[in-house]
């Protein structure tokens, strides 16, 4: 059984079925990309795994434990970190306070907090330079680094990233995704939602394509990148824009 195992997830918004039986899995060291257009259900999938939404049926298991029905703040402690769409950093707090909150569950272990912060600063030196600065005054790229760094403070087994490259200049997007690869190489399972399919497939090991709440394609990322259907739907014509 995989580290993260999602089976036949059905999620509703009121009477509207947003996820119609999503199944996916991810293992340590793996980047698993979830691709799909707007409203396909990518964000809903992540929000359900992290406990912000409750599924009507289906199962989510992490390291053999069920996450369904568990409160979002408890799921963090079970090793799943979610960097939400739009970064959602705490703009009135400074960089360091944002990171401290990322380590909220280990807040009594000052030494551990210090080590984790040092590790985040190692990954994103820019954040170290701006540790006392209000997060709301950071550039978009720095805010994304902060959002990822904040999620790493809990040393997650599974890191879920929702559109980490959205709104970033192409160079910066590339560098953020390179760091995501680095995080996976250190042993985390990464679930990566991206509209920028080309770049996502370039760093991912495995990928799923979602359309209106269903998985329509899955497979090795390199193979999918060459798949005609994927190229037509997600890779064609978007190159110059960088994202769909």
């Amino acid at each position, binding site marked *: 059984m995989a580290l993260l195992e999602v089976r036949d997830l059905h999620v509703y918004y009121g009477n509207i079925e947003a996820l119609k039986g999503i199944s996916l899995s991810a293992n340590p060291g793996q980047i698993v990309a979830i691709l799909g257009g707007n409203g396909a259900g990518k964000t809903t999938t992540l929000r359900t795994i992290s406990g*912000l939404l409750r599924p009507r049926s289906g199962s989510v298991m992490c390291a053999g434990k069920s996450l369904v029905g568990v409160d979002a703040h408890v799921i963090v402690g079970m090793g799943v*970190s979610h960097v939400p769409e739009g970064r959602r950093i705490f703009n009135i707090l400074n960089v360091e306070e944002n990171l401290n909150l990322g380590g909220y569950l280990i*807040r009594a272990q000052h030494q551990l907090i210090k080590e984790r912060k040092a590790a985040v600063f190692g990954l994103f030196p820019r954040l170290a330079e701006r540790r006392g600065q209000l997060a709301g005054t950071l550039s978009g790229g720095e805010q994304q680094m902060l959002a990822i760094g904040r999620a790493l403070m809990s040393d997650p087994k599974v890191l879920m990233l929702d559109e980490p490259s959205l709104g970033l200049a192409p160079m910066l997007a590339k560098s953020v995704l390179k760091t995501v690869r680095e995080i996976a190489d250190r042993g985390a399972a990464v679930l990566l939602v991206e509209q920028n399919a080309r770049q996502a497939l370039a760093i991912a090991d495995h990928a799923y394509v979602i359309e209106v709440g269903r998985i329509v394609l899955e497979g090795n990322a390199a193979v999918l990148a060459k798949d005609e259907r994927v190229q037509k739907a997600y890779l064609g014509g978007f190159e110059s824009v960088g994202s769909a």
Partner: protein
Amino acid sequence: MGDFLQYTVIGLTVGSFYALVALGYTIVYGIIRLINFAQGDLSMVGAFLGWTLLVSFGFEHLPIYLALVIAFVVPMIGTAVVNLGILQFAYKPLLRRSLLAILITALGMSLLLQNSAELIWGAAIEAYPPNLLPSSGFFVGPVHVTYVQIALVVASLLLMGGLVAFIQGTTIGTAMRALAVDHDAARLMGINVDAVIRIAFVLGAMLAAASGVMLGIYYVQIHFTMGFLLGLRAFTAAVLGGIGNIPGAMAGGMLIGLLEAYTTGYLSGTWEDVVVFGVLITVLIVKPTGLFGERVAERM
């Protein structure tokens, strides 16, 4: 000039009570966007709990420091429990539903506390022991300052300092500030949002209770309706400073206290409410975000 300074001393004393209650409004508003209209009445509950201990139980005869510690700490805990009960049974079922419903419930809770207090302690005016603290004082030039005034202002400042240290200096305090921005993002940090809301209600109630006991010591007389006007004035103070903003609530409280003292001194006590609520209306029209508040208001 002498008059002016004398009124200033009085205004700062009373203002520190308003500031404590205003902080309760502002902390709770910052986190769940609720004007907890029971805030002033929590102060009244604290005043009566303190009175019960000092007078009914006779703790006023204990050594003064011991009596004061008991008369502050026990009502602060008791009132915190009351506020947690209100949160659990009245507000929590409505959270994430309708802000209007919860606002009306808050008004209901204010009435509930008043009527419960009348039921428990009666409708009569009760009196704190008049000489609990030495009523003497000293002159600074033409201005008379009493030891009671100094003690109460210092105690208020200590409580406010403690609150600021907690909110600025601890991770739980940081989490409280984070909740003013984004509840879901806070959950994703592992923050138990419900628990932090409870902490905010405990802090708000403790500050209100402390101000209630202080009012009892300062004015001697207490009554089950005393929380109503106190609450409205403290609310004005919170709005004046920018609701959701902690330094703003403190400054707003002091300003309202000063305004009240100057009005009483230069005009007459009957004009107090006209001036205070005139200020509320003016602030709401001219600068609805208050003197210091822009952060929270941008989300409204």
